[in-house]
């Protein structure tokens, strides 16, 4: 039986939602200032309008409900799930007003793609977009990658409620004893890398004769979308626009860093670099990158003759890193996939599906879950082959020494099965709309694992049903199902109570 959500639950959810909408309103003042600095008056007015709209709408539930109490688990989870949908609609308004989207659905798709750090795009004529709108596209990636709730935690949410909403956003581990400290640490790491990589990229862009203002703008945007594994870019050609192996190298570096567990970052930052060698998830991640790269290489070499090793490595490895970290940056045109063999494409699909590390900005199943399932299988095999009285203990090191428990294996297996189901369902829906299975599966995995690489299906002219399918996939994939399922139960219980 589904437990009913009371009026009190609804009030509390709306109260916290109001706080988060107000937060969004404040965030929109940043692109407003970007517009003002660049003398883009029309876009600035749009951002001011949406910012004020968010501030006023967000304030209403705060006046009506006034319920500043702690949340329970189902309230916390429901808030997270609703919050992402509301953020999508609010984030889509300035995009739609920009005139670069054919419909509000397209703008919503792009907003969800940014918040969920997917990187699939439906924008038209990006190369003539105002800096303010373009900054907002990338800033949404940054907010979404850090976690909308994480942003809100550092701004508004206090008390015992924070852990419930923090977990709801697909982060199970507290890096530090306190969630607020953890949120601040995640911000510290992200902002430090933001400064470092912005300086490096701006230097490269200036050296390449790009004007200082544009060099800085490109660098900040590239970092925000790359670190948070979204894969948006300032120009339509994505990273290919720069025609620069150095920029590809730097972007690959921060993509890989962004897909590493924040706990590992913390260990290294606090003087424990040995964690890099000991961490089970990291070791498995490196092994997985090498294994999937081997598949991609085999697929590329067998099917196509590259003129030299560098061309082959640059095309194959960058796409692989982009897939496995869930970034979705691309240094090739979509049409290049026409000479990629099915095996090479399968290699990318596997890499996208597996995803990055847990408690990182990456999406997908996550390597730690695969590791736990593998350890679980090993443990079961040991139990079967040992005398009955033997107590089998399977250990691994992830930030600290951990023991495999049945509950870990069960939860990892459930989430993995849910992801695989989502990948297949999306692929089949694509086939239903008349696309071939492999590109359709590619696009589905890319949306669900929040990657953003495309074989050409995602375009403003694809069927509306498929756009909605991908929006749902991006949302479910980013929240790792649980919060979304709690929200669905909540909605069902409202219907039952009627």
């Amino acid at each position, binding site marked *: 039986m589904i437990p009913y959500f009371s009026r009190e639950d609804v009030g509390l959810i709306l109260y916290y939602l109001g706080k988060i909408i107000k937060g969004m309103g404040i965030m929109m003042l940043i692109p407003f200032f970007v517009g003002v600095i660049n003398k883009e008056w029309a876009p600035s*007015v749009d951002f001011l*309008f949406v910012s004020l709209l968010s501030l006023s709408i967000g304030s209403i539930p705060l006046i009506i409900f006034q319920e500043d109490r702690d949340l329970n688990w189902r309230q916390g989870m429901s808030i997270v799930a609703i919050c992402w949908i509301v953020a999508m609609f609010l984030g889509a308004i300035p995009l739609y007003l920009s005139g670069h989207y054919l419909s509000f659905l397209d703008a919503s798709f792009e907003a969800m793609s940014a918040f969920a750090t997917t990187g699939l795009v439906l924008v038209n004529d990006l190369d003539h977009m105002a800096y303010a709108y373009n900054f907002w596209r990338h800033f949404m990636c940054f907010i979404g990658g850090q976690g909308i709730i994480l942003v809100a935690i550092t701004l508004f949410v206090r008390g015992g409620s924070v852990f419930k909403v923090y977990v709801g956003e697909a982060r199970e581990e507290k890096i530090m004893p306190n969630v607020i400290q953890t949120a601040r640490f995640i911000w510290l790491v992200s902002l430090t890398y933001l400064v470092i990589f912005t300086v490096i990229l701006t230097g490269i862009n200036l050296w390449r004769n790009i004007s200082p203002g544009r060099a800085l703008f490109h660098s900040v945007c590239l970092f925000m979308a790359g670190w948070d594994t979204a894969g948006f870019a300032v120009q339509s050609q994505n990273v290919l626009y720069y025609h620069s192996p150095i920029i590809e190298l730097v972007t690959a570096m921060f993509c890989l860093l962004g897909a590493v567990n924040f706990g590992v970052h913390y260990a290294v930052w606090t003087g424990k670099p040995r964690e890099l060698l000991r961490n089970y998830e990291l070791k498995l991640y490196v092994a997985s990158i090498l294994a999937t790269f081997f598949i991609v290489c085999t697929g590329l070499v067998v099917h196509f003759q590259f003129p030299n090793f560098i061309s082959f490595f640059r095309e194959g490895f960058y796409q692989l890193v982009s897939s496995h970290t869930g970034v979705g940056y691309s240094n090739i045109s979509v049409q290049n996939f026409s000479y990629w063999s099915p095996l090479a494409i399968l290699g990318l699909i596997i890499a996208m599906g597996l995803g990055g590390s847990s408690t990182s900005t990456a999406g997908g199943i996550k390597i730690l879950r695969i590791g736990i399932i593998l350890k679980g299988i090993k443990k079961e095999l040991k139990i079967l082959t040992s005398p009955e009285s033997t107590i089998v203990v399977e250990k691994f090191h992830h930030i600290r020494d951990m023991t495999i428990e049945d509950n870990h294996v069960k939860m990892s297996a459930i989430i993995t099965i849910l992801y695989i189901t989502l990948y297949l369902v999306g692929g089949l829906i694509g086939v239903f709309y008349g696309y071939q299975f492999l590109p359709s599966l590619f696009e589905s995995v890319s949306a669900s694992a929040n990657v953003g690489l495309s074989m050409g299906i995602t375009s403003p002219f694809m069927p509306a049903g498929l756009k909605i399918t991908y929006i749902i996939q991006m949302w479910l994939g980013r929240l790792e199902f649980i919060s979304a399922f709690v929200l669905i139960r909540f909605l069902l219980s409202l219907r039952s109570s009627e």
Partner: protein
Amino acid sequence: MKKTFILLIITLLVAGISYSKDIKNSEEVIPIKNLFEQVSLYDGKEVVVQGEVIGDIMRDGEHFWVNIKDGDAFMGIVIDALQKDKIGCLGRYGIIGDTIKVRGTYHLHCPVHYGERDIHAEKLEVLESGYTVPKPLRIDRIVVSIILGVITIFILLYAQKQSIHRDTDGQQTKK
């Protein structure tokens, strides 16, 4: 002798016409989309493309990169300093860039540029200069923003007042 002379002139004329026709054919602009779809036909061959210059001109050693947009298709063009100077306007927000016509060699995987898909420009001409597109302010949006601004200030002040009221009540209850 006279007949031979006339025949020679006719032959030369025919040859000349067909030669000029060949030049005209080689100057025929190929949509960039075709370069992606019929790679084997054009890879390593001389092609003529045209499109709007967008974004930036980026230095790469002694050469420069520009990107041109032809419909929904884009191509990176490698140009030299002299060709770079011909480009006056780059496509950005509120600006339509120069439309250029480029004759050069197309590579699917350029051996010089680490496997880039590019065209090495041999000849570049500006077909149409770029221009500014005015982006007028929408009065309706300004009016709505002002109204919303007033409403927001009112709501925020009301919420603040209520919050102070609630805090005072709470303190009195505690006493």
